[in-house]
């Protein structure tokens, strides 16, 4: 009995191993022969098959992916039927199919496709971040069409409009400034981020006002952008955020002050005497990062300012500075 079972299992598994091995080897030979020089264009019988698949709603996962593959191929090949099929697929309840339609429209990239993508962004029936990625990739073509998103009733649409305008420094400045007073904090944050790339248009005042926003993530974006737009004049207000209750806001303030470089030094020096430990630490860290500590350590090691920075940053900040100085001295001597 045992022998019979063992021999049967042996025979089945042996045949299975042979069959699977042949499938691997022959499948690979077939693949290498077929896809060595993949062609982008589709025509004839292959095109008809792809058109059939792309048009047919799928009932299973498998059918859904076949449809996705067909839509992708047709869009890449810019087949004449692609726009019609993509528009239909954009409405499909299957997220895989609608996502493929978004990618396909991005691949087409013409005026009609951009119009469809903006419409999809407004309606929100497909993932807006996917649509936004395609619109961002197609810059500068969408351009002025994005402006109308800024006045949409839906705050999510206004958010994406403000975010996408980052690629167009010449348009929408006034509207973005207005959006810094939007009732939705996500919109205010997006407007702040985009204004960081465009000085003027009253952006500086708007960003400085947002540094006191009740929402912490708005303050994060405002701090980073104010550093770019307002410059040294904004440093004291940004340095004030070094004592913010939120760690992320303090980090954003440090980033902004670091980016300002030497222009931020006066504001940072004032914070060295702050009663808030986080603020003192942060100011000392930024002064270290922008090279003030290293410069003083070499040129004026006994300076009072250096002593104040060390007092604010702690013993380890001093040790790190001394190590850097020693390493550089060794390198120069060598």
């Amino acid at each position, binding site marked *: 009995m045992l022998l019979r079972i063992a021999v049967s299992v042996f025979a089945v598994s042996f045949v299975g191993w042979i069959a699977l091995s042949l499938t691997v080897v022959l499948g690979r030979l077939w693949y290498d022969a077929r896809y060595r020089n993949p062609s982008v264009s589709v025509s004839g019988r292959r095109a008809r098959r792809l058109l059939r698949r792309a048009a047919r709603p799928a009932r299973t996962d498998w059918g859904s992916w076949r449809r996705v593959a067909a839509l992708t191929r047709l869009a890449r090949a810019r087949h004449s039927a692609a726009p019609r099929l993509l528009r239909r697929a954009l409405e499909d309840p299957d997220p895989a199919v609608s996502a493929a339609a978004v990618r396909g429209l991005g691949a087409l990239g013409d005026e009609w496709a951009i119009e469809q993508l903006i419409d999809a962004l407004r309606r929100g029936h497909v993932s807006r*971040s996917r649509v936004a990625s395609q619109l961002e990739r197609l810059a500068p073509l969408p351009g002025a069409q994005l402006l109308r998103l800024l006045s949409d009733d839906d705050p999510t649409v206004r958010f994406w409009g403000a975010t996408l305008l980052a690629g167009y420094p010449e348009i929408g400045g006034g509207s973005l400034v207005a959006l810094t007073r939007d009732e939705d904090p996500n919109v205010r944050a997006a407007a702040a981020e985009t204004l960081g790339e465009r000085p003027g248009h009253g952006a500086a005042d708007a960003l400085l006002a947002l540094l006191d926003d009740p929402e912490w993530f708005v303050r994060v974006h405002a701090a980073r952008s104010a550093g770019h737009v307002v410059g040294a004049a904004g440093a004291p207000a940004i340095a004030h955020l070094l004592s913010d209750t939120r760690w992320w806001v303090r980090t954003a303030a440090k980033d902004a002050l670091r980016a300002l470089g030497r222009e931020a030094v006066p504001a940072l020096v004032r914070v060295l005497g702050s009663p808030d430990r986080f603020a003192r630490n942060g100011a000392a860290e930024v002064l270290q990062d922008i090279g003030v500590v290293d410069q003083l350590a070499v040129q004026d090691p006994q300076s009072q300012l250096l002593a104040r920075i060390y007092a604010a940053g702690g013993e380890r900040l001093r040790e790190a500075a001394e190590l850097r100085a020693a390493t550089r001295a060794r390198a120069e001597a060598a």
Partner: protein
Amino acid sequence: MTTQLLTVVVLTCLGYLLLTNVVAMVFILVGAVENAVRRHDSRSADYSTLASSRFTIPVSVIVAAYNEEAVIENTVRSLLDFEYPEFEVIVANDGSSDGTLERMREAFALEPYEVFVRRILQSEEVRGIYRSAAHPNLVVLDKANGGKADAWNAGLNVARYRYVCGVDADTVFDRNALLKVMRFAIQDPARVIGVTSQITTAKNPERMLAAPPGRRPVDSEPLMVYQLLDFLRAFLNNRLAWSRLGFMLCSPGGFQIWRRDVLEEVGGYARSFTCEDIELTFRVHERFLRERRDYHVHCLPDSIGVTEGPDSIAKLIAQRERWQRVINETVVHYRRMWFNPRYRSVGLVGAPFYLLTEVLSPAIELLGIGSLVAAAALGLFEPVAFVAILGAMAFTNAALTACAILFDDLQSRMYRRRDLARMLMLAPFDLVLYRPFIFWARLKGSWRFLRRDKGWYKFDRNVRAA
């Protein structure tokens, strides 16, 4: 009486073997579906848009390094070379006693800086933080030795981004590894809290990765080939199915992406276990299922990196012994999940599967081998029956391995054709050339688990050709 008892034991062990193989085949069928879906998903993905988009979620990559002087530079270079819009690399040097830190200092022009970071998770003292003059997105922590989990926790305190990716210092990655895996997380960041992907193994990972897909060479030594086949089976025959069925219980330390807020919420990596990766995965599942939250931990079939495999039997046994121990520690620690419907498929299938095929299997296999030998000595079975049983086991194993090779080739078309053929030919001999060492390692690991041994027993790195 003895004869009857022996017969019962032998038949029970063969029944166990049959059951595990049937379960393995069910997983293969489910994995085949998952593999096909992911393959189509990946082929229609728009990687170029993702690679350049501002909307691609940034990632903090954390490397825990302990005495990794030989490999650390290549690993960090492969990480810095990622094709991804925004990421940082944090290396936590866990009190190495070799030249790991010196090697990095020279290779990446590191300079000490004081950085004030959050201390959300406990870790041993961070002695210094270094930044690279050449790579602004590289941060190196030098900390007192506290183990890999401790090093990762220290890295997490420094991490700035929403997703964190824990990697091993002995693994090198494809340039698009992060893109391939994060593409999946970005599709549904609210639900996808953890993702991992297939990692392979080689004696010299850099050599394997240097070749383009389709021409990747497989090591010539059978020991390395069998380890590669083992990895392929683990990922493609098992984890894909677990993923689809909702109980992906092992995000390996070699490459695991987690949403940072989840790691902070569950308290980071556990320092009280021999190894941290599988325990963390269990803990996340336990927490989210207990609180009835909607979530997903996923494993993808894409081959994204190569880890260094032990090139000698002694090293292999040391590694696998440790793996066995940590599995035992974790599965036993989370015993409240076994067969508990509250934990859905994790409690009803995943945890019991681990118990049956990992924790109990060394004991059952030992019993089976012992009883078979005794049965042979007593003349209970004819020699031909033994040969048939061995043949059945060898070729069932080979068929399962061939399935994994097929899945991998369908997914990635990674290896040279001649290497595919060699792997297929070697598969039936796995039972005699490789499994005995793994069996011994698992026995040793189980014994050490019973003795509550939690040592790491790190083995020396392979010697690479210049």
